[in-house]
C-alpha cells in the first residue's frame, strides 16, 4: 500500500514546531498556544487512519515508505509500522494534545519554545516508533533527547542541571553501545542497515550475547530497569509537568519497544539464555522499587518509582515468551502511558496551586477540591491495578503468562497487588483525605474546565481500555505471534 502518512506524522509536527518558534517572544504567546493545540489535534486526527486502515491479519510491516538516504552506506529512509508500534504512535499523538492543553496557563515564560519543543519531540518520537532502518532509528533516538533535555533544563525545578546531565549521560552511554551493535550487524549483513534484515541474520551465541547486552544497555536505561533506574526519579522531580508526562508516558516505552524490535527477534538465543537475568531484574524492580516508593515523601518521586515498578511488568511479560506475557507487556505500556501521565498531571494541578510536591504539605484536599479528588482517586485505583481500569489488563495478563512458565514468577509479581495498593493509597490517604491541614489547603480552588478536560479525557481512556481491551489486543495478535515464532527459531549459524 502506497502512503506517506508516516512521513506526514513525523514531519508535520516538526515543521509546526519550527513555525511556532517563529512566532517569537512571549508577547505572541496566545498565538503560539493556539498553533500548538491546532497542530497537535491535526496530527492526532491524521494518525487515526493508522488504526482504521490497519490490517490486523498480517504481521508484515504496513504503511511502508522507502527512499534512499545515504547511498554509500546503504542507509535508507525507511518507515513502516506493525501491531507493536501502531498503538504506541497513537499513544504519542493523543498524549501530545493533552500535554499542550496542560501547559496552556501554567507555562508563562518562553511559551513558543515550550510548545515547539513538545511538537518537535512528538515528530521525533513517532520517528523512533516507525523507523525501519537502524541509522534512521538511531538518529531519531538521539534526537529525542535534545528537546527533553531542553524542557527539563529550561522549565525545570531548582536542581534541574544535575537532573538533566544525569539523564543525558545515562541515556547517551546506553545508546552508544547500541550504535556499536548496529555497526556489527551492518558488517554481518553485508552492508545493510535494515532492521528487518537484521531479524533474519544467523549469529553465533557469544556474539548474540554481546549484541543483546549492547542493546540491553540502551533499552534498560530507557525502561528503566533496576539497577539503572536512578536517573528517572531525579528527572521527574525536576521536569515540568508536561515533561514528566511525556517522559513517563512515552519515552519509557521506547525501552520496551526496543526490546521487542531488536533484542528478541535479532538475538533470540541470547534472549532465552539471558531470560533468567531479565526476569530477575524485573522481579526486583516490581518488589524492591515498590518498597522504595512506599517511603517517598515527594509525590513526583513516588509516582516515578511506581512507574519503574510497573515497567517491571513490561520486561517480565516479554521474557516469559508467551502471548499472554507479551500482550500483557504491551497493554501495560499503553495503560501506563495514561495512568502515569494522569497522575503526574494530578500532581501538577496541586503544584500549580501550592508550589509543593511534598506529601506533608497536603492533607484534606478533597474538601476544597472534590472534583479533583474524584479524579485522583480514580487514577490511584487504576495505578493499583483495579479491574475495570486499564491498569489491571497488563498486570493480569503478565501474571497469567508468567504463571504458565514458573509459578514463582507470578507469585512475586502478584505481590504488587499489595504493595502497589499500599504506596498509592497511602499517598491518597495523606494527600486527598484527612482533615484540612492548613489555610492554604482550605483556600485551594477546584479544577477548572481546562483541567477537567485533560483529566476527563485520560479518565475515559483508562476506563474504556479497562472495560474493553480486546480491540487493542486484536491489533497486536498477528505481530506478537510472529515475534514469538521468531524467538522460537534459533538464529545460531
Amino acid at each position, binding site marked *: 500500500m502506497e502512503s506517506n502518512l508516516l512521513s506526514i506524522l513525523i514531519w508535520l509536527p516538526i515543521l509546526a514546531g519550527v513555525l511556532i518558534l517563529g512566532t517569537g517572544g512571549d508577547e505572541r504567546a496566545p498565538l503560539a498556544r493556539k498553533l500548538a493545540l491546532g497542530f497537535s489535534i491535526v496530527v492526532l486526527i491524521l494518525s487515526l487512519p493508522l488504526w482504521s486502515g490497519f490490517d490486523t491479519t498480517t504481521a508484515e510491516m504496513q504503511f511502508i515508505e522507502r527512499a534512499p538516504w545515504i547511498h554509500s552506506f546503504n542507509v535508507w529512509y525507511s518507515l513502516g509500522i506493525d501491531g507493536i508500534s501502531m498503538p504506541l504512535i497513537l499513544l504519542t499523538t493523543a498524549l501530545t494534545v493533552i500535554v499542550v492543553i496542560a501547559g496552556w496557563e501554567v507555562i508563562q515564560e518562553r511559551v513558543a519554545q515550550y510548545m515547539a519543543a513538545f511538537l518537535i519531540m512528538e515528530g521525533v518520537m513517532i520517528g523512533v516508533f516507525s523507523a525501519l532502518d537502524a541509522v534512521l532509528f538511531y538518529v531519531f533516538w538521539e534526537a529525542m533527547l535534545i528537546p527533553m533535555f531542553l524542557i527539563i533544563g529550561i522549565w525545570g525545578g531548582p536542581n534541574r542541571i544535575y537532573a538533566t546531565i544525569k539523564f543525558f549521560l545515562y541515556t547517551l552511554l546506553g545508546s552508544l553501545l547500541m550504535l556499536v551493535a548496529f555497526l556489527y550487524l551492518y558488517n554481518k549483513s553485508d552492508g545493510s542497515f535494515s532492521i528487518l534484515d537484521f531479524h533474519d541474520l544467523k549469529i553465533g551465541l557469544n556474539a548474540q550475547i554481546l549484541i543483546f547486552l549492547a542493546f540491553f544497555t540502551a533499552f534498560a536505561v530507557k525502561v528503566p530497569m533496576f*539497577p539503572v533506574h536512578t536517573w528517572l526519579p531525579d528527572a521527574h522531580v525536576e521536569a515540568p509537568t508536561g515533561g514528566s508526562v511525556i517522559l513517563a508516558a512515552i519515552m519509557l516505552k521506547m525501552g520496551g519497544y526496543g526490546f521487542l524490535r531488536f533484542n528478541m527477534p535479532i538475538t533470540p538465543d541470547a534472549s532465552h539464555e539471558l531470560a533468567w537475568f531479565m526476569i530477575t531484574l524485573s522481579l526486583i524492580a516490581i518488589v524492591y522499587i515498590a518498597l522504595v516508593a512506599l517511603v*517517598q515523601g515527594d509525590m513526583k518521586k513516588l509516582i516515578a518509582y511506581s512507574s519503574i515498578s510497573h515497567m517491571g511488568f513490561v520486561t517480565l511479560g516479554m521474557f516469559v515468551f508467551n502471548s499472554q506475557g507479551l500482550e500483557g507487556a504491551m497493554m501495560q505500556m499503553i495503560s501506563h502511558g495514561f495512568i502515569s501521565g494522569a497522575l503526574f498531571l494530578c500532581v501538577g494541578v496541586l503544584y500549580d496551586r501550592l508550589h509543593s510536591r511534598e506529601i506533608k504539605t497536603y492533607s484534606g484536599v478533597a474538601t476544597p477540591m472534590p472534583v479533583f479528588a474524584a479524579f485522583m482517586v480514580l487514577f490511584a485505583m487504576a495505578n493499583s491495578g483495579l479491574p*475495570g481500569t486499564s491498569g489491571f489488563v497488563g498486570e493480569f495478563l503478565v501474571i497469567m503468562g508468567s504463571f504458565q512458565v514458573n509459578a514463582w514468577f507470578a507469585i512475586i509479581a*502478584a505481590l504488587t497487588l499489595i504493595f502497589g495498593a499500599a504506596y498509592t*493509597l497511602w499517598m491518597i490517604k495523606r494527600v486527598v483525605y484527612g482533615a484540612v491541614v492548613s489555610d492554604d489547603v482550605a483556600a485551594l480552588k477546584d479544577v477548572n474546565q481546562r483541567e477537567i478536560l485533560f483529566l476527563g479525557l485520560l479518565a475515559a481512556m483508562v476506563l474504556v481500555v479497562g472495560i474493553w481491551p480486546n480491540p487493542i489486543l486484536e491489533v497486536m495478535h498477528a505481530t506478537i505471534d510472529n515475534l514469538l515464532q521468531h524467538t522460537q527459531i534459533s538464529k545460531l549459524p
Partner: protein
Amino acid sequence: MKTIYLAIPMVCLIASIVAGLFGKKIGRKGAHTVTIGGVAIAFILSMVVYLDVRQGNLFNGALYNWAISGGVAMQIGFLIDQLTATMMVVVTFVSLMVHIYTIGYMHDDPGYQRFFCYISLFTFAMLMLVMSNNFLQLFFGWEAVGLVSYLLIGFWYEKDTAIFANMKAFLVNRVGDFGFLLGLAAVLYVFGSLDYATVFSAADGAQDQTLISIFGEWNWITVICLLLFVGAMGKSAQVPLHVWLPDSMEGPTPISALIHAATMVTAGIFLVARMSPLFELSETALSVVLVIGATTAIFMALIGLVQNDIKRVVAYSTLSQLGYMTVALGVSAYEVAIFHLGTHAFFKALLFLGAGSVIIAMHHEQDMRKMGGLRAIMPITYVTCFIGSLALAGIPPFAGFFSKDAIIESVHFSDIWGSSYAYIAVVLGVFVTAFYSFRLMFMTFHGNNRADDHTRQHLDESPAVVTWPLILLAIPSVIAGFLFFEPVLSGSYFGDSIYVKPEHDVVAALYEVYHGKHGVGLIFTAILHGMMAPPFWLALAGIGFAWYCYCKNTELPGKIYNALGPISRIVENKYGFDEFYQKVFSGGSLALGRFLSKHADAGLIDGIIVNGTARTVRMFSGMMREGQTGKTFHYAFAIIIGLFALVTIFVWAR
C-alpha cells in the same frame, strides 16, 4: 430474558452514574429517587428472574469478549441458575431496604448524593459478581465491591479513623486478592480456560495432576482451592484476615448493614459454594475451610462479649456468623451455607439498621453504656431488633434457627478431618451468640436510661423511612426458615447449581433423619428435634444469663471480667492481631523501604556507582589538569626529561 439479565445490573449502574455526575443538578430528592427507582426495578426484575429460574429456565452465555490472548477467550457473561437467582434477590432486596433507610439516616449529611451514587454502584458490582459465568468477571466484581467498600468506609474522609480503616480494609483484602489472582492463574494453567462450565466439567479429569515444588508434591485442585479460599478469607473476613471488618464500622451504618453484613462479606461464601465442583475434589481444602471457619466462629464471638460500641458488637457477631457459614462449606453443606447467608442477610441487616436507628435517636452516640431503657421510646425499633436477635440466637421458629441448626447438625454428621473441633466450636458459639445479642438488647433497650439530659429530651422513634425497612426486614427474618428449610434440605432448591460428592453429602443424611421421623412435617420435626438438642438449651441459657447479668445483677459482668484477668485482656485486645500486623507487616515494609531507599538506591547505586563514577572521572581529570600548568619552563623541563628517558632506553636497548 437476556435483556432482563443485562438490565438488572445496568439500571443500578446508570442510576449511580446519574447520581454521581449530576448530583448537584438533580438535588437530594433527585438523587434518591433515581437510585431507589433503579434498585427497585432491579429487585422486581430479580424476582421475575428468580421465579423463572424456579420454573427451570437456566442461562449461561457470554456478553462480549473482554480480551482474547494466547487463544484464551476471557469473557463477560452471565450464569443464571438457582444459586445466582437466590443471591440476586437477597442482594437487591437488602439493597432496596438500605436505600430507603438512607433517606432517613443520611438526612443531614452534605455528601447525600455521593452516598447514593456509591451504594448504587455497589449494587451493580455485587450483581456482576454473583451473575458471572466465569472466574475473571467474578474477580472484577470482587475488586469492584472492594473499591466501593473502600469509598464508603472512608465516606467521612475528614475523620482520621475512617481513612485509616478504609485503607486497612483495602490492603487486607488485597492480601486475599493476591491469593485469588494466583488461583485464577492456576485455573488458567491447569484448565486453559476461565469459564466456569468448562473448568467444572474438566475438574474430574484434572484430579491427578500434581505440582512438585520445594514444599513437596501437591494436587493442583487442592492448590487452586486453597488459593481461591485465601481470596474468600479476605472478603469474608475469616481469621487471620478478619482485622479489617470491625474497623469498617467507621463507615455510615447503612453500608455496615448492606456491605459489611448482608452482601459483600458473604461473597467469599458464595465463591466457595460456586466452586463446589472443585472443592468437592479436595478434602484437604475442605478441612482447611472447616478449621478456619470454626476458629472464626468461636473466637470472634468471644470478642463480641466485651465490646461496648453497639455497632462493634454486631460487627463481631457478623464475623462469627460468617465463620458458621464457612464451617458449613467445610463440611460440604454448601446449600446450608447459602441458606444461612440468606437468613443472616435479613436479620443482620435488620440488626444493623436497628442499631443505626438507635444511633440516630442518640445523636450519634454508639456507646451502649450510655443507652438503656429505649424500649418504651422506640417501640418499633425495639420489637424488630428483638426479632432479629431471636433469629440470630437461633430460637425456633425464627429464620436463624433453621439455618444455624442445619449447620450444627451438618457438622455433626460430617466425618471430615477437623469436624469434631468444628462441632465443639459451633455448639459453644451458640451460647456466646445468644449472650452477646441479648446483652446488646438489654443494655440498649432495657433498664434505666443512662444518656445525658440533652440527649434524653430529644429521644424519639425514628421516622417512617427508617422504621419501614426494619419492619420489611423483620418479616423474612421470621418466615424465611419456614419457606425454604425443606426445599434446601431435600436438595430440590439448588438443583445442579451446587455439586456434592455422595460420600460428603451430610445434608442428604440430615434430610433422611428429619424426613423419616414422627410422621409430621419436616419443619415440625426439625423444631421438635432442635428443642431436644443441646444448642437450643445453650441459646436459652445464653439469653437467660444475659438477662441475669444486665437486668438483675449488674455488678456480675465486671466481677467476671476481673476474675478472668489476663484472658479478658487477651480477648479485649482481639488476640493481638492488629498490633502484630501493624508492627510486623506495616512497620516491617516501611523499615525495609526506608533502608532500601536510603542505602541501596541513594547510597549504593546513586552514591557510589553513579556519582562515584562522576567523582572518579573528576578526580583523574583534576590530576591531569595539575600537569597542564601553561608555564613554558615546566613543559621545557618535561621535554628534556622525556628526551633523556628516550635516549637512555634506545642506548640500553642496543
